[in-house]
């Protein structure tokens, strides 16, 4: 028996940030195919922080190489605007295969890292896992508040 129901996961809000329209479309297609309904997407990274703060997404799918503001800067900005006890996962999707990019992204707070081109099934599973973790984390916190 799953701890978290599929419906609960699919109801979560996901923010896609990628300057390539095609990639945004691909991810939206993958997510919609999985059954997610609350999907938001951005191709202009300059609006990413405002949108992140306004929408409070449960998961962010983030590209690293973007003009004007890159994914690393956004990771730092998100970390500054998140509460320390809030688990708001970021999944980095990038065409950069260099190991340095992977290490840097993960050290800046990214919870997972996928190299493009990616396997759509694998990405869908990773998204579901991250959301499940977030939901469990939320429950734990709520219980602690109730107990406290």
């Amino acid at each position, binding site marked *: 028996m799953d701890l978290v129901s599929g419906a609960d996961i699919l109801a979560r809000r996901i923010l896609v940030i990628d300057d*390539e329209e095609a990639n945004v479309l691909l991810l939206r297609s993958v997510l919609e195919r999985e059954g997610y309904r609350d999907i938001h997407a951005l191709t202009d990274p300059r609006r990413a922080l405002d949108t992140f703060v306004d929408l409070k997404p449960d998961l962010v799918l983030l590209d690293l190489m973007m003009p004007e503001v890159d994914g690393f800067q956004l990771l730092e900005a998100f970390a500054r605007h998140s509460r320390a006890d809030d688990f708001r996962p970021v999944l980095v999707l990038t*065409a*950069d295969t260099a190991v340095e990019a992977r290490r840097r992204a993960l050290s800046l707070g990214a919870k997972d890292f996928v190299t493009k081109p*990616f396997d*759509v099934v694998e990405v869908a599973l990773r998204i579901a896992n991250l959301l499940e973790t977030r939901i469990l984390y939320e429950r734990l916190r709520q219980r602690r508040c109730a107990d406290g």
Partner: protein
Amino acid sequence: MPAPFRLPTRLWTDRPLTFKGVVVVAVPLLVLLAALVSLYGASTAEVQAEDDVRRAFAIQRDTHRVHALLAEAAAGVRGYALTREEQFLDRYRQAEAELPATMARLDGAIRDPQVRARFERLRGLTARKQEGLRQIAALAERSPDTAELRRALRANTQVLDAMRAEIDALQQRESVLLAERTARVEDVRGRFLVVTAISAVLGLLGSLAAVYLFSTGIVRRVRVLEHNATRLARGEALGEQPAESDEIGRLAQRLARASALLRAREHALRESEERFRLVVDQVRDYGIFALDADGLVVSWNQGAERIKGWRAGEILGQHFSRFYPPETRAHRPAEMLAQARRHGTAEDEGWRVRRDGSRFWANVVITALRDEHGALRGFAKVTRDISERHRAEETLRLAREEAVAASDAKSVFLSRTSHELRTPLSAILGFGQLLELDADDLPERHRAAVTHIMAAARHLLALIDDLLDISAIEAGGAELRAEALDLEAVCRQAASLAAPIVAGAGLRLTVDPPRRPLRVVADRRRVVQVILNLLANAAKYHGNGTTVTLTARQEGASACIIVEDDGVGIDPAHAPRLFTAFDRLGQERRSNVEGTGLGLALSRSMVQSMGGAMAHERPDRGARFWFTLPLAPPDIPAPRRSEETEV
């Protein structure tokens, strides 16, 4: 000094100072005493001479008196005889009474024998005269017979005449004597004057001699001694000092000994200093010079002159800050001295200026010089011109920076290229995969199209990956983790990974390990990748072969890894293009064999990046590929077990 004088002089100078003092004081005293004695003798003689003169005068006076008294008596008696008056007899009696005393005085005073003889005759005459006078007086009283009286008177007068003659003779003699005595007094007085003058001269000469002895002897020698003592204090050579054995002589000898000792010591010290100075001075590659406590240059060697251009005469006494360029002159010299004072030494590298204003890059060490009490005496400064090294380092640094920049640029280029190629491919593969997932919803012909799209896209992705790999290796940007590896272990690992592919191609895989353990320096992952690539190629292109053999053995200073098969082999016409990228040697037309055409090119790049070589040989049957890897030196330890089993 002439020889005859040397001995007495030596005898004198060798006497102790006390003796000399006594002699110097006694000589004038003795001269003075002799003068006094002679003075006394002279004055006694004079007194006696004067006494004689006085007596001569007294004798003459008394002789006249005797004559006068007798003449008086005679006159009285004659008067009485003529007149018979008693009063004439008074003068006779008075003379008669006075005469004996005068005669006695004369008797006592006369010394001269001639005078004495005449005096005795005079005495006889005087007695006869008196006797005659007494007879005349008696005659005159008794009878007036004048004839007898006249006769008596005549006789008496004759006696007086004889007496007068005698008295004259006596007086004459006494006058001679007086003249003699007066002459003698004059003589004695003259002699006395001479003696006095001689005594005065002798006394003066004695004093002068004493002074001379003192000044020319002792004082002169003491002065020489003092002069030598001054020279000794200045460290100069002593003047000549005769070997004399009195106190001054001994002092002089000790002074000479001390001087000799000092000079010997000084000589040794100077010799050592000289040697040291020569060494320092002859050093040409290092500028070695000394500063005083204020930083003024006090010594200068050839090296300093060569490096900095100043001659010693031009720079001595100048402050060392003039060696610094204007931008550091105000603060750096003071900082260096302060640091040297605090820590003993200060080292610095930087620009310095030469006399002509040109700059050089210097290595400078300043050492504080302290005496045994810890007081700062100055600084030693050693300067080395390392401009050449600095230039070489700068060139190297620039080259390195350029290389790093080029490498960075290439990395950025690769990264960007990777991104640019992969991003569209990502969309293609992603949507293609979605279509594949929903293939059931697609018509048959679309399903086939999706399959083709996906195959092409995956091939494209493999191509891109290989291409970027080669570029990364050739740019030197890809990480190379060289370590000492056991070659057999690496071969077995690659063989086990390749086993399914080889088996799938219907071939048998044989591993022929080295006879004894071989260790190579290489990146394990890449070696495995190269062997895997070669085995996979054999599996793909063997044609009708049956066996693939993987052999590892030592060849000289290298290890050699050989992969060979017994298939159709490679057309000799294709051999030169084997390692050319994208050249699949016509295999692209065989639809059942996949490949990018980059495998061998990538493998050779990897082997070369590890310091090895790769080539193809054409044996009698089949194909043979081999590559080499450098052997590990014996002292590099083998990696731990856990790492060997990794991958």
